[in-house]
C-alpha cells in the first residue's frame, strides 16, 4: 500500500486530498499511467505533467523516480510560498 496525496488544483480535479492504493507501479510515471487509466478526473489532473511536481516521502523528486520503498507520494502544482 502507498499513500497518494493531492494538493491545490490537483486535489480539486481529483476530488479528494489523499487515498491509499495498491499498486505494482515501478516508477512515478507508471503510477500516473495507472491513475490516468482509472477515471477521467485523473486524466484531467495529469493531462500536463510539465505543470505538476511530485514528492516522494516529502522530498521533491522526478516522474522517472522508482517507487520501491516509498510510502508517500504527493502530486501538486509548482509551489507559491512566501
Amino acid at each position: 500500500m502507498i499513500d497518494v496525496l493531492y494538493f491545490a488544483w490537483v486535489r480539486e480535479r481529483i476530488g479528494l486530498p489523499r487515498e491509499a492504493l495498491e499498486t505494482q507501479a515501478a516508477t512515478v510515471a507508471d503510477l500516473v499511467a495507472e491513475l490516468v487509466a482509472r477515471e477521467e478526473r485523473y486524466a484531467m489532473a495529469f493531462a500536463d505533467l510539465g505543470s505538476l511536481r511530485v514528492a516522494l516521502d516529502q522530498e521533491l523528486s522526478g516522474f522517472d523516480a522508482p517507487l520501491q520503498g516509498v510510502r508517500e507520494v504527493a502530486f501538486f502544482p509548482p509551489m507559491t510560498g512566501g
Partner: protein
Amino acid sequence: MRLSVQAGAFDLGAESNAFAAAVPGAGAIVTFTGVVRGNGGALRAMEIEHYPGMTERAIGAMMAGARARWGLADALVIHRHGRLLPGEAIMMVAVAAAHRADAFAAAEFLMDYLKSRAPFWKREVSVTGAGWVAAQDADEAALARW
C-alpha cells in the same frame, strides 16, 4: 533556529524584538515580512494550502543551508496557512549575522526558496471569482543565483 507553520496571526514587532534579544552579539539583523495585497479592493481573501510535514522538512533544510553558508547567528521563519485577509501578514523571515551583506544574502536566499520550494499553494478569492496563483517564471529563475 525556530520555524513555525501556523494558522494564526503573528506579531511582527514582538517576534522581531524577541529575535533580536536572543542574538546580542550579532551586528546585523534583517527581517522580511510578506503581506496580503488587496489589489485596490479587488481581493477578498488569500487562502493558503500546505503539505504538513513536508513544509517543515523543506523549510528546515533551507534554514540549515542558509545558516551554514552565511554563518548566521540565528534564523527564524514563520509562515501562515488558511484564510487571510488583505493587509494581514502571511509570513516573516528574520536572520542575524555579524555583517550586513551576509544577513541580506541569507534573507533573500530564504525568500527565494520559500517562494518556489516550500509546499504552499495560494488561492486568491476576488470580487470576480477565485483561482490558484500561478508560479512565476521569475521566481523560479531567482533560484539560479544561489
